[in-house]
Each structure stands twice: as C-alpha cells, then as structure tokens.
C-alpha cells in the first residue's frame, strides 16, 4: 500500500499520538487558565475599604460609649448596595476616639453596653468587656476589636473591617 493509505505504525504512530496529546493539552490549558481565573477572581477581590465620616467628635461625650452608624456603599458584583453597621465609639479624655467593631470576638454576636454595670456584655455566651475593651469575664479569647479610625477637621473617620472570631489574635477577614 502506498504511503499515507495505511494506518501509521511504530515511531510514526507515536509521533501522531504524542502530538495530539500535546495539542489537546495546549488548548486545554489556554482555556482553563482564563476560565478558572474568571470564576475565582471576584472571590479573591479585597473589599474596597474607604474612610467614612461618622460625624463630628465634639458631639461625643467623654468616657461614654456611643453607638454610631457606619453607612457604606458596598459593590456587590454588578450591584451597589448601601449597608449600615452600628459601631461603638468611646471618646477619651485626651480627645482621642476609640472605635470598636460591633461584633463580639468570641463567636460573632452583637454585644451591648450595660450602663448600670458600665460594661459591654454579649448576650450570646456571656462575654464581658470593660470600656477599654478588655475581657472581664466569659469565654472571649481576646479584647474587643478596634477599627482603624482617625480624626480630620473634627470629623471622625472610620474604616470598617471584619475579623475572624474565636482566635486569641485579631486576624482580618
């Protein structure tokens, strides 16, 4: 039979087999990389943290925790939504302001300020913190989480962050 009209054998056959495998892998990889990246990328995107003004610091009472609203514009894929979180601000006598995340570091419940006992208390598992965020009782593994904050022109600016609960160290999510 003339060349080309019989099924290739030996090294000629293995050349075709190997080339086919090579080409298929090449196409496969050139597709897999962009396609997988395309699906994964938004999941890996860090939240865009912005400084949000919570208002003038003058209005805050010294040494008294105040619940304040943190309103942020969140980009949720192709949608934009506005969410509000309540954070705790405590003004010190030197004028500086500490801002606590509203989430209990134990397991993520929302805690309250008990005016009578002058303590932050978490209703879920009984963690108790003083006005500086130090653990006073209960299962909490670390003090209350402070949020990055600064004062500019008398405005209290805060960046909202979330941290892993249940750890002795503060680890951002």
């Amino acid at each position, binding site marked *: *039979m*003339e060349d080309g009209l019989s*099924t*290739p054998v030996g090294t000629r056959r293995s050349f*075709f087999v190997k080339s086919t495998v090579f080409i298929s892998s090449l196409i496969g990889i050139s*597709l897999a990389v962009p396609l997988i990246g*395309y*699906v994964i990328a938004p999941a890996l995107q860090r939240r865009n943290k912005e400084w949000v003004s919570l208002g003038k610091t003058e209005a805050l009472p010294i040494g008294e925790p105040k619940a304040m609203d943190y309103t942020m514009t969140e980009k949720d894929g*192709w949608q934009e939504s506005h969410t509000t979180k309540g954070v705790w601000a405590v003004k010190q006598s030197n004028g500086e302001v500490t801002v606590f995340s509203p989430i209990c570091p134990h397991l993520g419940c929302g805690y309250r300020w008990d005016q009578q006992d002058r303590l932050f208390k978490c209703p879920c598992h009984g963690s108790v913190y003083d006005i500086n965020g130090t653990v006073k009782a209960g299962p909490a593994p670390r003090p209350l989480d402070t949020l990055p904050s600064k004062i500019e022109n008398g405005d209290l600016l805060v960046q909202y962050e979330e941290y892993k609960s249940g750890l002795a160290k503060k680890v951002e999510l």
Partner: protein
Amino acid sequence: MASRLYQWIDQRLKLKPLEQTLLDEPIPGGASWNYVFGSATLFLFVLQALTGMFLMVYYVPATDHAYDTVQYIQHEVWGGWFVRGLHHWGASAVMVAIGLHMLQVFFDGAYKRPRELMWIVGVILLAIMLAFGFTGYLLPWDQNAYWATQVGINMVGNVPLIGDFLVKALRGGETLGALTISRFFAIHVAFLPVIIAVGIMLHLFILRRVGPAGPHDETRAKTGSETFYPRQVFLDAVVMLGVFGVVALLAISMEFPLADRADPSDHSFVPVPEWYFLFFYQLLKYAPGAWGPLATWLLPALFFTGLLLLPFLDRNPNRNPSSRPIVLGTGLGFLILVFSLLSISLRDLYAVPKRDPSVIRGMALVEHFNCKTCHRIHGEGVNVAPDLSFVADRRPDREWHLQHFKDPQSVSPGSFMPKFPLNEKQLNDLTNYILTLKSG
C-alpha cells in the same frame, strides 16, 4: 501511571472494544485535510457551550439587569472580556466552519445515497445553529440586541395565517420585554443545547453506521484505507488548534463593545444583524413592495426545503464533481449571490464615515468629568440638567458650545453648570463630540 490507571479501569469496564469502535473506524482513501471541517465545527460548538456556561456565572436574563451584568463581565471580571470575546467570535467561527463543512460535503457529493439522512440531520443542525445566533443576540440587552431582535421577530410575523401568533409566542406577549428575554435565554441555554446535542449524536451515529464517504475519486478510494486514529485525529487536532488560535486572537485584538442600553423609545437606532444574516438583510432591500413580506419568509423556507430535498433532487449516483455541472453550477451561483449581497451590505455599512478620533476623546472627557451625573445621553445618566442625546439639533453652533464650556453662565445665565478646567484641546474635543449628538 496514567496507563496503569487506564488498565485498572479497563479490566473492570472492558473499554478496549469501545476504544476500537470509536477510533479504528476505517477511512477510505486514508486520512485527509478534507475531512477536518466536521471536527472543527464540533470543536467550536464545544467551545461555545463551555464559554456560554462560564458567561452564565455572572449573566442575569432580566431587562433591568442583563445589560449591567454584561458590562460587569466585559469590564470588571478578570478575563471576562476574553470569555465574552471567545463566545462572540466563536459564534461567527462556527458559522464559517459549518459553511465550509457543507461546501466540502456538497462538492464531494457526500450527501448522496446512502448518506441522505446524515445530510438531512446536518441541515437541521444548521437551522438550530441559526436559532442559537438569533436567541443569543438579544441577551446583552443593548440597542443593537433590542432593535435587531425586534426586526427579526417582525419578519416572522409575515408568515401567512400563523404569523401573528408566532410573533406573540416568540415575544411571550404584546411587546418585546421581560418575558422575551427570559424565554430567549431559556431557549438559548437549555432547550437548544439539548436539541442540538441529540442532533449531533444522531449525525455522528449515522456517520458511524454508514461510514465516511471518502474521496469522490474512485481509484483513490480503492487504494486502501487507514483508521481514524491516529492520523485523522492528529489532523483534526491541528485544525482545532488553528481555529482556537484564530478565535482567541480575534477575542484579544477586536473587543466587541456593547451599544447603549436597550431603549424601546429610541426609534432613531438602526440595528445591524450579525454578518451571517447580512446577505439576507441586503436581499430584502431589493424585494419590491408587496413582495417584501413574502420574501421574508418564503425565501428562507425555499432555501431550507431545497437543502433538505437535495439528496432526492440530485439522484445521479456519480460523486465526481466533473460530471455534475448543473448541481455544482447551481451551488456556485448561490455562493456568488450570497457573497455579492454580503459585500454590498458590508460596503454600505462601512461607507458610514469612521468616527473622528477627536470625537472619541471628547466622549472620554464626558466620562472623565462625570457629565452624566447631571445630563442624560441616549438613556444613560441622570436627567437633572438638559438631555444631551440630540443637543446638536437644538444648538448646532460650534462657537456657542466653546463659549459655554469655558463659562457656562456667560451664554446661559442662571445655569448651575460648573466651569470645568478644560484646556484648548479638550474644549475642541468635547465640542466636536457634542456636535455629533444629533438625530440622523
């Protein structure tokens, strides 16, 4: 390692006979570049299915979200523009591949007895692919999608007796809207894929039962045969790589931008169909008066009937092209007609003057200075200040705009438009763009 794993599975599932059936099909006359078109079509179809699935990860088929989600895919998701580009150019490529595949079968007379059924299923597959193109075109919900689909659906309305009913059934109601996009989406991603998958399996099943036609030259066909694997598989793989390379290159180099968001009230928009419908679009321009409506449905109906009946109309068993002058002449005539119409149509489309680069820079300035936070332009932006969609109709005077951009209150007292820090070039670019905003 891989071969030991294969052995392990083979001992249990007895794959060898299956492997032989799939790969050791004899090809009369040996492997050839002539036979790569079917595989290329199949490959592109798989590419469409794959990229389509990935587009669905972010796409939402609703009038109020579709456009935003496609914009999101195009501009924000990592690699989104590439996935969408592959799907867009893949759709065109699959049409080219089908065309070449059919031409090869037609030229080689491979549709003749005993392969009539394979041809008929193939023609149905072509119709399904066109339906894919038509339903997919609406999904981005931009002006082109909306108006081209409007025209396409109205053409169906010309079918006698059941036309009105068909139009309503396609739209899902009286108007093109929420119900249309959701049913087009369902058809595009669920119904058609299932139907075409069955069709492709049937096409391949018939191929395996009847066997490949081989060369039309009988002496060459008799010189022997070789199995499908490995050489034909290798040739197919080379072509698939080439086809993938071309589609990927097109996706990278020619971004397919969205038009404005679909605006049912904007009747000034002139839609253009996909290029594979263009010849027909052009043909309809020549259908005089009362023949127009007839042409919109009768010509496609005749075309598909002709294709379906081809193996029965052409009963000459001889496959050699040199002894089939009438059939091949008819085919050639059809091709000349299609390509002439296509080229006239493309020439007309490109005769529209290209956009001045200064206008494009001006357009970018509108985005840069966030003009659309007050002004609306073709459905985009807020209607606080005057709508600028057709501002040049009202104010064609160039000097006025230049002065207005420099100092708005000097020509428009009481206007709350701020003074923007524009240099001379930016002033010119912005004015050039503003002057293009007119109807017709």
